[in-house]
């Protein structure tokens, strides 16, 4: 599991690669810290190379959203495959995030 954060066109982009399971979540949470700390810039969670996510990963995504919303920051999910999107649908998270292709 690899998490890369960079800035692009005034947005913060996080790229997730591999399996975001319970074992990978603590390191990923550390790597995602800049997303929690940032203000005034929208956030893009690039999931095009994300193969798997379990509830510990969903919790991290939800945490980003919860910290962004009061700051007026938008959180977009891009490139998520149909299987993972199904997990977001099942848990109702699909209604909370903004999805982009």
């Amino acid at each position: 599991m690899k998490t890369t954060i960079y800035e692009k066109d005034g947005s913060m982009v996080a790229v997730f690669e591999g399996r975001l399971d319970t074992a990978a979540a603590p390191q990923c949470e550390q790597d995602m810290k800049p997303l929690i700390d940032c203000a005034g810039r929208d956030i893009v969670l690039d999931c095009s190379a994300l193969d798997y996510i379990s509830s510990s990963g969903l919790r991290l995504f939800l945490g980003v959203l919860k910290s962004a919303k009061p700051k007026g920051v938008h959180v977009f999910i891009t490139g998520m495959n149909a299987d993972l999107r199904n997990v977001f649908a099942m848990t109702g998270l699909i209604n909370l995030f903004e999805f982009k292709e």
Partner: protein
Amino acid sequence: MKALDGKINQKQHSDRRKSFFRSLVLPNDVQAVPQLNQFIDEICDSVDLDPAQTMQMNLAIEEAVVNVMNYAYPADVHGDVNIDVQGNDEQLEFIISDSGIPFDPTAREKVDTTLPLEDRPIGGLGIFLVRELMDSIHYKRVDGKNVLTLCKKL
């Protein structure tokens, strides 16, 4: 262990009708989850589940096992989690057991997935996913063990 795994798989492929049994013991350490994922991948492969179903099975079993790892034993106490799998061409049955304190994950209140963001609790999705993804989930306390049985029809 590797050689034994291979043998069981081979047997499974040569006689699809026959039921099979597989077992894995993990420490109560979430860093062992990749080992669990590999085990589940092998089982799903042996009953020809497609990638989407395999992902869902991994998710359900990871959530159930991690729940045990996190709650069955006091922090800093080493304990084991047993994962027994009984399968045939009709269903997969996972029996997850531990010798920890009595803990019934099925007694947890169901998460309301329709709540708006502000009211959404950050946790509790694990057992919710197990319920969603499996056909049945049963808990019992037997001989000082927590025994959680999950079933998936194929």
